C-alpha cells in the first residue's frame, strides 16, 4: 500500500491517478489538463505593467482574463505546493543542482547550468506555444482525446528531445 511518506510510488499508479485529474477538469472547468498557457497569462500580466499595449494583441488578451486561464495559473502554483508537500513528507528534499547535470554537462559550474536552464525554459515555452500545448496539454490530454495534432506534436517533441539529449554527455 503506497504511503504519503514514501519517496516513490509505482509509476503506473501515480500515472493513472494523474489521468483521473481529467475528471474534475472536464466536468468542473470544461477543459482538459494543461500547463503551458499559464506562462502566457503570467508573463503577459507582468508585461502589461510596463507595456499596456500588449493588451492590444489578441493572443495576449485571450490569455489575460477569464476563469480557465487563472484556473491553469492556480494549477501550476498548486503543482509547486504539492511537490513541496510530498518531498517534505518523504524527506526527499532537493537543493542546488541535481547531480545528473555534472554528468550531462561535464562541469560543476552553476553559471553554466543556470544559463542552459534559462535557455531550455525559453525554448520549451516558445515551442509549446507554437505547438499550442506541452507534455500535459498535447501529451496527457491530447493523446487521451485521440487528437491527431497531439500525436504529431508529441512525436515531434520526443524527436527533438532525443536529438538534443544526445548532444549532451551520456548520463
Amino acid at each position: 500500500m503506497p504511503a504519503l511518506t514514501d519517496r516513490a510510488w509505482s509509476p503506473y499508479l501515480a500515472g493513472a491517478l494523474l489521468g483521473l485529474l481529467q475528471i474534475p477538469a472536464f466536468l468542473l472547468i470544461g477543459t482538459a489538463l494543461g500547463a503551458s498557457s499559464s506562462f502566457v497569462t503570467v508573463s503577459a500580466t507582468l508585461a502589461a505593467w510596463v507595456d499596456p499595449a500588449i493588451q492590444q494583441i489578441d493572443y495576449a488578451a485571450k490569455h489575460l482574463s477569464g476563469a480557465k486561464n487563472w484556473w491553469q495559473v492556480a494549477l501550476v502554483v498548486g503543482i509547486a505546493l504539492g511537490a513541496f508537500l510530498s518531498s517534505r513528507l518523504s524527506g526527499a528534499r532537493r537543493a542546488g543542482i541535481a547531480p545528473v547535470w555534472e554528468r550531462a554537462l561535464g562541469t560543476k559550474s552553476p553559471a553554466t547550468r543556470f544559463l542552459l536552464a534559462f535557455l531550455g525554459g525559453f525554448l520549451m515555452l516558445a515551442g509549446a506555444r507554437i505547438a499550442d500545448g506541452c507534455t500535459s496539454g498535447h501529451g496527457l490530454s491530447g493523446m487521451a482525446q485521440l487528437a491527431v495534432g497531439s500525436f504529431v506534436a508529441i512525436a515531434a517533441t520526443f524527436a527533438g528531445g532525443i536529438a538534443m539529449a544526445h548532444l549532451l554527455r551520456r548520463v
Partner: protein
Amino acid sequence: MSVLSAVLLGLAMGVVFGFLLEKSRVFEPAVILGQLQLRNFLMLKIFLSGVAAGLVVIGALVATGLSGLHPKATLWTADIVGGLILGAGIALAGACPGTTLAQVGVGYKDARFTLAGGLLGALTFTYLEPTLRPVLLEGGAGKLTLDKVLGIPFPWLAFGFAALLVVGLVALERWRPWREEIGANADGLLPPPESTAPAVPTAASGRA
C-alpha cells in the same frame, strides 16, 4: 464558474498534480534526461499510464454524455516545428512546463532559471504571434480526432487504445522493472554507464 472558485479548484487540483509528479519521480531531471537518452524509461511508464487512464475516464464521460471533447486544432507545421523546439527545450531544462514548477517546489535552484526562461519564451511568442499566425498557425485540419478519421465511436476507440497501452506497459515493465530505475537517491540517476562496460576505451582505441 467565478474566477475565485476556478482558482481555488485549480490550486486543489494542482496540489494533487504536484504531489503525484513528485511521488512518481517524473519531475526529476535525471528521469527526464535519462528517458530522452533512452537509458531510463520511468517517464514513458508514467506518461503512458496517465494517457491510458485519461482515455478510460474521458471515454466514459463521452459515453455517458456527461462531457464532450476539448481537443486542440491540428496544425501540421506548428505541431511539428513547435514540438521539435519544445523537445529540445525539455532536454536542456531537464523538465517540461508542468514539472518545472514541481522542481521549483522541491528546491532545485536551476529550475528558477528554467521558469524565468519559460516566462520570457511565452512572452516572446506572444509578441511574435501576430507575425507567426499567417505562416504557422492558420489552416490545418481543425479539431481532428482519430475516432472521426476511422469512423469508430470515441469511447470504443479510447477503451481499445487504453487496452493496447496497458499491454505495452506490461511489456515495458517486464523489460525494465520500475524499481530498478528509481535510483539510490530516488532521483532516477543510475550508475554511470562506464561502470557497466569496463575496459571499453582501450578496446576502442586499439581498433582506431
